[in-house]
């Protein structure tokens, strides 16, 4: 099992859309957005089975999500985390004076984290902010 580097982007998915309307406190939100979609070739480099928990780390933070095989590929070298608190734990907040954070195009490292839990959405944000 190795560490891989991928270029991270975040964005909408229809499952994420349904989940946010269903309630972000629910497990369905984590299932929809607490994931990283990886190309099969990157899975191979990672040396892990699909649906394994992984730790994704950038210069700005670190988060545990479930690695799944991409549904909209191939896109070797690119990782996709749907928009939401998991992605936003690690994307680049710098707006470079445009007002817009850099949600897409963040270099990240992905490591297998089989025994680390994936937090629910609200829980994750509260923990990172130090709020009960």
């Amino acid at each position: 099992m190795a560490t891989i580097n991928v270029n991270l982007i975040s964005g909408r998915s229809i499952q994420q859309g349904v989940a946010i309307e269903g309630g972000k406190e629910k497990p369905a939100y984590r299932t929809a957005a607490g994931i990283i979609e990886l190309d099969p070739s990157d899975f191979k480099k990672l040396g892990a089975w699909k649906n394994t928990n992984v730790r994704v780390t950038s210069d700005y933070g670190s988060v545990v999500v479930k690695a799944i095989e991409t549904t909209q590929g191939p896109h070797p070298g690119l990782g996709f985390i749907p928009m939401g608190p998991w992605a936003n734990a690690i994307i680049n907040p710098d707006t470079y004076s445009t007002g817009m954070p850099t949600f897409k195009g963040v270099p990240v490292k992905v490591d297998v984290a089989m025994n680390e839990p994936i937090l629910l959405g609200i829980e994750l944000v509260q923990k990172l902010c130090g709020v009960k």
Partner: protein
Amino acid sequence: MTKTITDVICPFCGTLCDDVEVVVSDDGKQLLEVYNACVIGTEKFLHSQSKDRVTRPRMHQPDGSWKEVSYDEAVEYSAQMLAKAKKPLMFGWSSTNCEAQSVGNEIAEITRACCDNTAATCHGTSLIAIQDIGLPSCTLGEIKNRADRVIFWGCNPAHAHPRHMSRYSIFPRGFFTSKGQMSRKMIVVDPRVTDTAKMADVHLQVEQGKDYELLDALRVAFKGEWLPDVVAGIPKEKIREVADMMKSGRFGIIFFGMGVTQSLGKNHNIDEAIAVTKDLNEYTKFSIMPMRGHYNVTGSGEVFGWQFGFPYSVDLTRGFARYNPGDTSTIDLLIRGEIDAMFTIGSDPGAHFPISAVKQFAHIPSVCVDPHLTPTTGVSKLHVPVAFNGVEVGGNCYRMDNVPIDCRKVVEPPEGMLTDEQFLIKVRDRVRQLKGVA
């Protein structure tokens, strides 16, 4: 018995479908079925019926529990917070109606707040580009009736605007497009083979973050000038093929989204996309349109525009409106630690802001007005649930092409719940008292 309400407007995304049908109980209190909406819209309507909805305001206790309070107490907390703050921020506005947005503006003006909407993390950079270069555009019906070249650049409507292609952009048989999708050529530019790209006649799998180069290359190709062998991962032959396809149409449209607004280049990417569109108008007819996310972010921009003169990131702290993205925009204000009170409504910054910005409002006085439980409510001091706009209360909204549609009320909100507008009016009136103004 039941009754069916037609011509219902779905309050989820900028597509603002207005052909939804909702079946409600005879007494108007229960929403039973939804027809024609996409799966996300359907979920929004149906979830309003969920039995575990929070129906009263609640204050976040230090031990993490929540204490229910009355709407009056919630009004008092909100008004005191906004009136006392030196630099309050009123953020969101994109999932509520224009009437509520207007009352919010009154409060912001009296309290000298900063106000901003979700364009801050969505099409804000498009607005900056439009302010540099303009925007040749049209309404969605023009696409339906005339477009024979449809480009989706950095957006994935199959996932984010699910009925867009069937209602407006690819499938409809319009006046001059009676063969429906057969009348159109579809081009998708995206670093992934998205579900939208799978439908395209041409998919340019651009190298992520290199859209600016590719757009620029298209402008060169229009003029038939020299190109390097590969630009942004796309071979020059393909670039020329797409350039010719665009020029040979009689009415083209570029729809664009976060792929270009949020990746590096940001507003410059959009500037270049608009320049491509302008160039094409030398050869044929072309328009460009941002795929707005929230169903009324456009409305918030319009209301800010006609009342304050700027579409987002508005600073009223000096008693008149100022605007300077990067300076007056929400993320930058938060990260510089300038905000001392956070009022969120009609959006979820807790989930959709970078965590370093969320941390900045998690420990200051804060109010979140939202029917749902969200990461924002999770870190706010006061959570005020309200009726779902577009479901339990009507009100004007603006579609992604700036067309205004008046959302309908289809079902009663839970007993005793206020709407955004009603809550804001109470806050405004209390703020006026506290500030001693007319």
